[in-house]
């Protein structure tokens, strides 16, 4: 049985798909009526200018037949205007005076004819420009891909808003009713303990169940009193089949609760991604010794470094503050920093606001992650972390296009107020939806010896250095550095490269929850981590075959699929490894994990740049892919040589005390 909330979420997804398809259809018609003629107008402009130049030469006394360099001039025009397939200067008697390019295969290609006339108005020649319909159609298709991407973004935003509404406290009664109706449809007769306040719809169902459970308990006591072992076994088997005698705690909503707040907050930061380098470049003082390129990248470097360095101390701080308070304080710091970024006129002040925004970001990140781990049972952790990862990935997909439009419309500085608004919204949603903070009393910083003992945990070091670090290294090196550089070298536009790069996050958003569920169901977390790394790293080896955009797209798809397989199970394994720290606390271990993971982020571009210069694109990518494959094999082998303590079946983990604040 599909509930009201799930059903309407599905319905909205389908309705929006249809609506956005209609808009895309209208967009295509609009493009053909407005943008295609604008491209043709460009050919007319080129034609008029070239014809005027020829007329000028003829007026200056150079006979038309004696003009030199016509071919190279026309070739120059063609090279500067990709949509022009052929340019031909032809005399009225048909003699060709200059030619560049070749006619396209399409017989219906549009031609623009510009007359070259003498001062008297007598026709001297015609400049015939043939427009390449293939190039125009490529441009139109690229635009439609952009519109389709906007559709995906709209859909994702809608689903996040739906999640926000569905996760709201006001819908608890509805959720309780849906849970009971669903249980009955499955033949499960358990008691539900999720409804704090019995609604008139839920109360009669619960009364029947209470009566039934009471009868069952009496029957079992009677059987026990009589010493009837067969009857006891029979009643227990009935309990197992029907859920009689069991109190069902309901679904775990730890990750669902945090998802909307986290999405809003992460989107606040992602808004700035498209315009941040441009803004930093414009703000950099003209006499700066470091150079404009470094000045543009410095705010990003400062942000990343502060986030990475804050992971370990903030993991403990968040425990001390309590998760909700940690989230709220972090979001407040970030919101104030965005205001600072919007108002800062000085470059170094701007850098300082980016550093404080990173501090807020790190505190929100570790608090949200801590909330998910604290409030999920070990066997639910992979799926819960998948929801957490998904919220961040969706924000990463939706933020940049929205931020780009905000910056275009309002200006780069003012667009930061958009980030402020979203961070404040995230703060409010977190304050309203997250459970009251339960600060861990006496939570102390994790000592080096404790981290050392965590590293000695079965397979933990192999997981960190064999899988976590190489995974981020591969992502940043291939997806964010080597692929854009290579495609740019091949002549592809920034927009086309951006579209190709979207393959990774889209696949991640779609596949992370699926693989997380599969990993949870099978309990083979380590297997998923290994397989994911092999797929992602092995994909990079494909570049040894060729570097065409199709192969690059395949590599990015395998990278997305591979990392979707491994990302959530990997975090769950880390959380499980935290049990080996004295006291069984996860904060320091998770901080260490994120620190090492982000080291891969930070070193990726520099190492990839070095490898690119020394080995070339294909070899550099293949080397990095090979490193990931070897790391994964090392991790897999560590499981064969050491007793497996981190990867166990869900049932066996149920006894774990770590993270069981439920």
């Amino acid at each position, binding site marked *: 049985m599909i*509930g*009201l909330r799930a*059903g*309407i979420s599905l*319905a*909205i997804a389908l*309705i*929006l798909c249809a*609506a*956005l398809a209609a*808009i895309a259809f*209208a*967009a295509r018609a*609009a*493009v053909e*009526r407005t*943008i295609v003629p*604008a*491209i043709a107008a460009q050919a007319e*402009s080129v034609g*008029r*200018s070239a014809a*005027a130049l020829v007329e000028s030469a003829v007026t200056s006394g150079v006979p038309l037949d004696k003009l030199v360099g016509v071919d190279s001039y026309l070739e120059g025009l063609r090279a*500067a*205007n990709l949509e022009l397939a052929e340019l031909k200067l032809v005399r009225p008697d048909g003699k060709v005076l200059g030619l560049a390019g070749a006619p396209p295969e399409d017989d219906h290609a549009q031609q623009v004819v510009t007359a070259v006339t003498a001062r008297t108005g007598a026709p001297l020649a015609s400049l015939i420009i043939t427009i390449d319909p293939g190039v125009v159609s490529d441009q139109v298709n690229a*635009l439609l891909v*952009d*519109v389709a991407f*906007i*559709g995906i*973004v*709209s859909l994702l*935003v*809608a689903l996040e*808003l*739906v999640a926000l*509404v569905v996760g709201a406290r*006001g*819908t608890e009664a*509805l959720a309780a*009713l849906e849970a009971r*109706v669903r249980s*009955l*449809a499955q*033949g499960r*007769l358990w008691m539900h303990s999720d409804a704090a306040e019995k609604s008139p719809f839920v109360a009669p*169902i619960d009364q029947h169940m209470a009566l*039934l459970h009471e009868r*069952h308990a009496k029957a079992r006591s009677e*059987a026990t009193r009589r010493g009837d072992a067969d*009857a006891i076994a*029979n*009643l227990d088997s*009935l309990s197992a*089949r*029907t859920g009689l005698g069991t109190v069902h705690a309901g679904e775990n909503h730890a990750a669902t609760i945090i998802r909307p707040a986290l999405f809003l907050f992460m989107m606040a930061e992602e808004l700035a991604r498209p315009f941040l380098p441009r803004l930093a470049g414009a703000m950099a003082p003209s006499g700066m010794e470091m150079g404009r390129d470094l000045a543009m990248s410095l705010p990003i470097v400062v942000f990343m470094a502060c986030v990475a360095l804050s992971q370990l101390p903030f993991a403990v701080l968040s425990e001390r503050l309590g998760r909700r308070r940690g989230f709220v304080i972090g979001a407040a710091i970030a919101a104030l920093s965005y205001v600072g970024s919007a108002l800062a006129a000085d470059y170094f002040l701007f850098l300082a606001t980016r550093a404080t925004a990173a501090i807020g970001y790190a505190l929100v990140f570790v608090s949200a992650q801590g909330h998910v781990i604290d409030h999920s049972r070990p066997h639910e952790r992979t799926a819960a972390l998948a929801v957490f990862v998904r919220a961040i990935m969706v924000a990463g997909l939706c933020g940049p*296009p*929205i931020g780009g*439009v905000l910056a*275009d419309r309002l200006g780069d500085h003012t667009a930061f107020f958009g980030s402020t608004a979203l961070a404040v919204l995230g703060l409010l949603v977190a304050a309203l939806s997250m459970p009251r903070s339960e600060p861990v009393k006496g939570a102390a910083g994790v000592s080096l010896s404790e981290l050392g003992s965590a590293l000695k945990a079965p397979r933990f070091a192999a997981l960190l250095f064999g899988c976590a670090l190489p995974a981020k290294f591969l992502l940043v090196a291939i997806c964010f550095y080597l692929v854009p550089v290579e495609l740019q070298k091949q002549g592809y536009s920034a927009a086309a490269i951006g579209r190709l790069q979207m393959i990774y996050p889209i696949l991640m958003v779609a596949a992370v929850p699926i693989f997380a569920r599969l990993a949870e169901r099978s309990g083979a977390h380590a297997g998923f981590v290994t397989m994911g790394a092999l797929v992602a790293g092995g994909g990079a080896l494909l570049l040894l075959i060729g570097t065409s955009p199709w192969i690059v797209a395949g590599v990015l798809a395998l990278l997305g699929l591979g990392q979707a397989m491994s990302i959530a199970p990997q975090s769950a394994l880390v959380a499980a490894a935290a049990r080996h720290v004295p006291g069984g606390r996860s904060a320091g271990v998770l901080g260490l994990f994120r620190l090492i993971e982000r080291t891969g982020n930070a070193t990726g571009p520099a190492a990839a740049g070095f490898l690119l210069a020394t080995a070339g694109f294909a070899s550099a990518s293949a080397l990095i892919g090979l490193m990931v494959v070897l790391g994964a094999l090392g991790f897999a082998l560590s499981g064969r040589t050491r007793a497996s303590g981190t990867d166990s079946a869900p049932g066996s983990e149920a006894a774990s005390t770590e993270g069981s604040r439920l």
Partner: protein
Amino acid sequence: MIRTSLGLIALFAVIAAACVAFGAYFSYVTLQNAHRKAVETRFGVTAERIAGSAQTAASLGIALPAQTTLADLTQREARLDPTVLSIDVTDAHDRVLFSSDPARIDTRESGRTANAVSRRVENDLASTIGQVVVRYNPQTLAAGEHALSGELQTIATPTLLGSALATIVIGLLLAAGLGRAARRAADPAQWPRAARSALAEAEAAHAALKTGERP
């Protein structure tokens, strides 16, 4: 609960409508940017050509202010396209040296101008010695943008309303279904088959124990 369900349905309808509006607006902005790019490429070609001529002359040792033929060139190029308002050649300090519009000579171009396309003029050492600025009639863009907006609005408005209505209808149907299921769930005789069969099994087991039979 009925109020909660109705509130939820209304909220979902608003979300559906808002997201269609969001999608339509962002599609419009994407197309508007593409249109601006297509239009400005045309003026960029002109600016590039004039900048190229100025650079060739500069590399032959003729300083930019001394390239007097640029006055004719700018006027000729401006005449070719009625949507061009003016073509200016400025020095490195943004002072207009030559222009298709003589009134603009010796004025100052102030940074990035709206509805204008510029190309830098560089010397052989790649230092900027000036720039060519083509100012075009904003109507050129406005007409296209108006057409784009009209095309998208025509489809977006009914789509938006349709999405909201469809969400409400589906929501009401689902709510009615849930209401029916809730009423049935309150009466064990009307429970779903799986639950009825589990209940029958349980009752049989309990009854058997009462009568002393083996269940």
